[in-house]
């Protein structure tokens, strides 16, 4: 099946700005699903609010475009009530980790079989460029005109600490890695977090003088390195890419099936 068959042309044109990294994520995601030969009927995509969250409208799955920050809570209801469905939750950095931070850590803690994709462009794009919990110290935003004094989260470290059993990171420059990691995240039985650094030339790039979309993607190429590489040892400032955690722990819906057996036996 062609990639096109996974998209809803009726929904186009999309809302993303020229140069936005989110389209690359959509491309990588759809290719991952295509290569796995999954039926469209068995996939539910749940999203919140923001630029990234519009991704759910563009794909031909069961799609649930919810409220800001709560996508994982809706997704938990979908998954637990019908565990045979594959549930994918794309979120922005603010959606996932500011307003949705509590749901994020608790979904990770439960290890419910959901694939969470954090499309991290370090800014609130839809509202016009305010700082997010991923903007980082010293950046500029419309709500940080004198530079941002908020420290940023490290999505990978946060996910690990919260109990996610699959944690990975890549960027919109590393397109093949997006597809590869999303495939593995979907196959993983448990809560999977995939952070994808995505460029927002319109707001983050312009405010922080990072140049064009191409310049920003080059930066992803130059500032990142595979996990444990020699380059990382020489330059600790580099951001690591790849799969950080991939382990088996009891999955929530499977565990609840055991509860049902235990309760029915009484």
């Amino acid at each position, binding site marked *: 099946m062609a990639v096109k068959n996974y998209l809803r042309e009726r929904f186009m044109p999309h809302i993303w700005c020229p140069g936005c990294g989110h389209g690359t994520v959509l491309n990588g995601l759809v290719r991952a699903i295509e290569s796995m030969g999954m039926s469209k*009927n068995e996939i539910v995509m749940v999203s919140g609010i923001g630029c990234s969250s519009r991704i759910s409208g563009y794909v031909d799955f069961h799609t649930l475009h*919810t409220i800001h920050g709560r996508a994982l809570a*809706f997704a938990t*209801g979908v*998954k637990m*009530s019908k565990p045979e469905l594959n549930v994918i939750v794309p979120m922005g950095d603010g959606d996932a980790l500011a307003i949705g931070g*509590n749901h994020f850590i608790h979904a990770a803690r439960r290890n419910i079989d959901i694939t969470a994709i954090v499309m991290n462009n370090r800014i609130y794009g839809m509202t016009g460029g305010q700082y997010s919990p991923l903007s980082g110290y010293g950046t500029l935003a419309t709500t940080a005109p004198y530079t941002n004094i908020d420290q940023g989260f490290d999505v990978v470290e946060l996910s690990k600490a919260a109990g996610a059993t699959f944690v990975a990171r890549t960027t919109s420059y590393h397109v093949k890695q997006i597809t590869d990691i999303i495939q593995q995240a979907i196959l993983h039985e448990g809560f999977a977090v995939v952070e994808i650094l995505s460029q927002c030339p319109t707001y983050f790039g312009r405010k922080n003088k990072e140049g064009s979309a191409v310049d920003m993607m080059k930066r992803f190429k130059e500032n990142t390195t595979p996990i444990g590489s020699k380059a990382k040892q020489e330059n600790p400032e580099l951001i690591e890419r790849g799969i950080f955690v991939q382990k088996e722990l009891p999955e929530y819906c499977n565990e609840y099936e055991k509860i049902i057996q*235990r309760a029915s036996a009484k």
Partner: protein
Amino acid sequence: MKNNVKFIQGNEVCVEAALYAGLDFFAGYPITPSTEIAEHLATRLPQIGGKFIQMEDEIASMCAIIGASLTGHKVMTATSGPGFSLMQEALGYAVMAEIPCVIVNVQRGGPSTGIPTHVSQGDVMQARWGTHGDHAIVAMTASTHQDVFAITVEAFNIAETYRTPVILLFDEVVGHMRERLVMPAPDEIPLVQRLRTSVKEGIDYHPYLPREDGRLPMSDFGSVHRYNVTGLYHDMWGFPSDNPQVVHGLLRHLVDKIENNVDQIARYKEYYLDDAEYVLISYGSAARSALHVVEHLRPRGERIGLLELQTLWPFPNDLVREKCEGARYMFVVELNMGQIRQAVQTAVERPDRVFLVNRIDGVFITPTDIRNMLRMITGKGV
């Protein structure tokens, strides 16, 4: 002794009724005085293959039941004041996306943390207007365990019939009180099942196109029709739209499907209203004391009656006006500062003859309280 007679808490009655109605997914968060609903369902649901989950907060609980409703399940959450406040945004989402679900609010005193273990009926207006934006809502209540059972089943039926959230506004007294419940037989109360689309695979299904009778057949997530659900204004496919005609049409539909069916949704009980000079209007636990007053004064020759409202929203204006036609005085007995009194005044021909009989101190209103206030208001020894 028959084993269909139980002596249980109101919260447990709500659980029994929800299971009777077909509840098979519950998400909640502990909060007084509703916690027993979650506790009982944690035990009962897995016994029948249903699912119970304790979420990280009430926001998540409300969201989770919406997700589970979309996969084809009958769903419920239960909470009290502060938790109900947290649920408001997602409640509005359920209104907009037309998701059948039941939200129980066992009311305690507010605002804020208020008085958690004491009774109040202070959330009546919050149920009506708590979520932002124009909308219609269904909120129901009951005063006895037998009625808590019936109304809870009705809430599920109405949620399915109109594809809407339904709020059950119980209160601490009804929730924690123990009294007799005769369990209805399995087929005694009719149940409304989810209306699913008959549109075949490969044919364009319109999740948001009402049939001629106003109902919108659903398709479970995971089955052959893939569609979009959103809290944005949307067209018949569920695709976001800012077309003024679409926006206007959808808001009208959301309001009209409830407000045009007030008669179908209205549930009430009446006592001695035929010749009543004094009409008490009450609901929930307060109606128990109001009924006691009526039954005490009738044998003493007072022409007093009671209209017990079980559907609070949409407010049954015509019904209240008709029932109060011959009344000299109307007394709204409620445990708040006049939230239903306002609605009654709007409905009746003589709003100046509508008086509030209330308590707002966390203490349950007694028949003596009511009689004393009637005496003061009427200036005679009623």
